């Protein structure tokens, strides 16, 4: 077993194996993880964080691969966090995003890490945010987080990114109607991928119209870019728009506000998970079980039972 000090030293020297080991210990919440994150935190804050989300099969990984190559043309270092769902039944996951990232496979300026959701919603955002911090501290100039966008957890992750790209395809059509409430609201830039397919123009127009209806928010109206990621078409335009959004946020002071909001959310999330951990210790869990028996026996109501547990905590 390597010591934390040794690992951190190798990390500081730019050892990618050490970076990878630190990501693992953070992701697994090994005992040293709070200490490691605290020691790395002063090095964070330099990386620009981009989120890429959209329905399954929209071509997110291919698009991310293209964006990474575009960023590498400027000689900047990139970290990619590719998130895929865990099975709620077995806890296993098949992480296949690397299949679409062959072109960046052995570039020493790129570090790709696949993460499974591990059944948590808000918790995933916390873990992915921590991993982004680790990559930031390692010196990556840009960190891209890729998530499947259908539920709630990607919203939290999007909040932790400074620019969120929502990827849709011509076939998304009706799906957009259902998703726009959540997904479209978080978009800073929209990519219509597989734009060589039928219906691309129509969906681009519809999306544009929908955005115009919504109007500007904080002085930014999300641009709609057509891309064919598999051929590299439109990647440069997409990157230019991300860059434009970055400059806009920096100059308007929104980036600072965004970061502040992020810190607040992070502190709250940590407090909440610690409270959860502290409340459900051995004593309260055994109390819970005996109280449940009493509820089942008709002696108490669930509300009375919880009051009992809460009084235990207050009385500590």
């Amino acid at each position, binding site marked *: 077993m390597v010591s934390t000090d040794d690992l951190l030293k190798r990390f500081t020297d730019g*050892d*990618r*194996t050490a970076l*990878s*080991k630190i*990501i*693992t210990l953070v992701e*697994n*919440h090994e005992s040293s993880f709070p200490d490691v994150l605290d020691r790395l935190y002063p090095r964070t804050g330099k990386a620009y964080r981009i989120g890429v989300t959209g329905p399954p099969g929209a071509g997110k990984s291919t698009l991310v691969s293209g964006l990474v190559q575009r960023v590498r043309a400027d000689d900047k270092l990139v970290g990619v966090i590719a998130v895929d769902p*865990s*099975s709620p039944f*077995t*806890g*296993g*996951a*098949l*992480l*296949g995003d*690397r*299949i*679409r990232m*062959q072109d960046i*496979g*052995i570039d020493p300026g790129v*570090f*790709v*890490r*696949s993460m*499974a959701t*591990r059944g948590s919603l808000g918790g995933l955002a916390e873990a992915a945010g921590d991993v982004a911090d680790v990559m930031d501290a390692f010196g990556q100039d840009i960190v891209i987080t890729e998530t499947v966008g259908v539920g709630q957890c990607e919203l939290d992750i999007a909040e932790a990114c400074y620019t969120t790209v929502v990827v849709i395809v011509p076939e998304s059509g009706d799906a957009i109607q259902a998703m726009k409430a959540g997904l479209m609201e978080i978009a800073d830039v929209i990519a219509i991928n597989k734009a060589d397919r039928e219906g691309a123009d129509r969906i681009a127009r519809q999306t544009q119209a929908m955005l115009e209806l919504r109007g500007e928010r904080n002085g930014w109206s999300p641009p709609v870019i057509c891309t064919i990621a598999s051929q590299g078409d439109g990647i440069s335009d997409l990157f230019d728009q991300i860059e434009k959004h970055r400059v806009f946020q920096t100059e308007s002071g929104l980036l600072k506000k965004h970061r502040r909001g992020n810190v607040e959310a992070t502190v709250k999330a940590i407090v909440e998970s610690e409270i959860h951990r502290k409340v459900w210790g051995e004593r309260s869990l055994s109390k819970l079980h005996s109280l449940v028996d009493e509820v089942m026996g008709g002696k108490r109501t669930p509300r009375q039972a919880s009051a009992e547990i809460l009084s235990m905590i207050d009385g500590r």
Partner: protein
Amino acid sequence: MERKIRVLVAKPGLDGHDRGAKVVASALRDAGMEVVYTGLHQTPEMVVEAAIQEDVDVVGLSILSGAHAVLFPKIVDLLKERGAGDKLVIAGGIIPEDDVEELKKVGIANVFGPGTTTTEITEYVKKEIASRSK
């Protein structure tokens, strides 16, 4: 929290048949593991880079082209060179009986040929990883 076993399933070399690799990847997932699949046509450098970035516990190599005698030792050597020689490296595909002993000598922990059940593989991986983390 129970530590998740992470596995890289890789297809080094030039053959384009990944049905077997996908079946094994799915079986490992269904056994509760996190499986990263690389896709086809990987060079040893690509496999090793992916194994390091993903910090997997296990590297599973599938090959049907006959290039195992060259590619497998190279992958094992590169892993050691990069300080990742502690990973469990296993293999499957079309590998002649005569070559298995040679591969084991260079550091392939086990070779699973045609006819292996998926349960044999998942049980083997679980057992090996459990004995290592003790």
